[in-house]
């Protein structure tokens, strides 16, 4: 009598651990013997034989685990309802958190929107860029102050109140192309690793055509976002614990009267 391929047989035997314990304990020896018997009498290729066995194994593992979960839930419906409630609350809380996070991020565009609008309007009506945006030395990497930059029509920096490593930071050229078509863009800009800017860019017309960018570091906002997500996670964890404790107490309260009635009976 031939023996099954040792490596594949060992892999199959190890894979039986995927079954629920009660199924494995009851059937493991029989299943392995059936594989030996089937291999000894097989009339087709070993590859097809093992492919079929492993496909069957995966399908039945999924089915047996699903049946086990279903029977556990139907045996303890309170836990099932607690899980459903948990999923619903997680979905609702997650959606609300995303909306709040977006509001927080959009709030970081102020006062840049106002600065860009005022600057664009002034430059379009003939103001000099150098007098409107006096060169100062705001370090974009460190400061939380808002800054403004004026770029020529070709995207070359003309004057700026903010500097990064002693140079005027320049956004990617695609941003200018977008603003040229749409008039305005609001972006999160990372001019160098660790420096993230909430930037508003507007098109400037008139005698000084070009672009005005107003930006501000996102450091504080992102710290707030980090803190916010930590708080959300903490609240979610507390909710899960609360639901599980509540479900356990309810389950016990249901069992207790039954036990009392049985004792009295």
């Amino acid at each position, binding site marked *: 009598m031939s023996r099954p391929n040792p490596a594949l047989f060992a892999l199959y035997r190890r894979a039986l651990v995927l079954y629920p314990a009660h199924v494995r304990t*009851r*059937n493991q020896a029989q299943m392995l013997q059936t594989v030996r018997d*089937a291999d000894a009498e097989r009339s087709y290729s070993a590859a097809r034989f093992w492919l*079929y066995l492993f496909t*069957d194994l995966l*399908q039945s593992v999924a089915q047996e685990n699903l049946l086990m979960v279903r029977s556990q839930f139907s045996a303890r419906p309170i836990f099932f309802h607690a899980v459903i409630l948990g999923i619903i609350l997680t979905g609702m809380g997650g959606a609300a958190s995303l909306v709040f996070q977006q509001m927080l991020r959009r709030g970081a565009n102020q006062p840049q929107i106002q600065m860009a609008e005022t600057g664009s309007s002034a430059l379009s009506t003939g103001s000099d860029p150098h007098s409107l945006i006096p060169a100062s030395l705001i370090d974009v990497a460190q400061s939380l102050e808002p800054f403004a930059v004026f770029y020529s029509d070709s995207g070359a920096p003309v004057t700026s109140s903010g500097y990064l490593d002693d140079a005027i930071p320049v956004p990617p050229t695609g941003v200018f192309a977008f603003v040229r078509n749409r008039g305005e863009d609001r972006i999160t800009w990372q001019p160098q690793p660790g420096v993230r800017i909430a930037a508003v860019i507007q098109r400037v017309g008139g005698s000084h055509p070009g672009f005005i960018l107003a930006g501000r570091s996102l450091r504080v906002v992102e710290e707030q976002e980090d803190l916010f997500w930590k708080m959300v996670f903490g609240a979610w964890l507390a909710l899960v614990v609360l639901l599980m404790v509540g479900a356990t107490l309810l389950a016990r309260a249901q069992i207790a009267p039954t036990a009392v009635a049985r004792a009295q009976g």
Partner: protein
Amino acid sequence: MASSPRTLDPESASPEAAHLPLSAAVLAILLALSGGEKHGYAIMKQAALPDGGCVKLGPGTLYGTLDRLIRDSLVEETGFTDDARRRYYRLTNLGHRVLAAETARLSAALGVARPRTALRGARA
């Protein structure tokens, strides 16, 4: 072990009807055991034959289904074994009745289907 959909009419719900219709795997196992007690591999071989339903059962599907048939009292272990790795199974009375009911159900359906398919085949 029955597969959905089960009968919805409580008036007609006999113990057998509650298990109908049977899945292909369950029918093949009951059919194989209707010929007498067998161990798992013998059931697998019988199910794969034309008179066993041509159902290819793998060990995982076979023993999982057998467990549920035992739970539903359609099949039982004989208690006889020549080897701990080869347990023998047989149909219970309920198992025999369920198999008979399923056979009657399928026969009735086939009785309707055969003339229709023959007519369609003749037209084609």
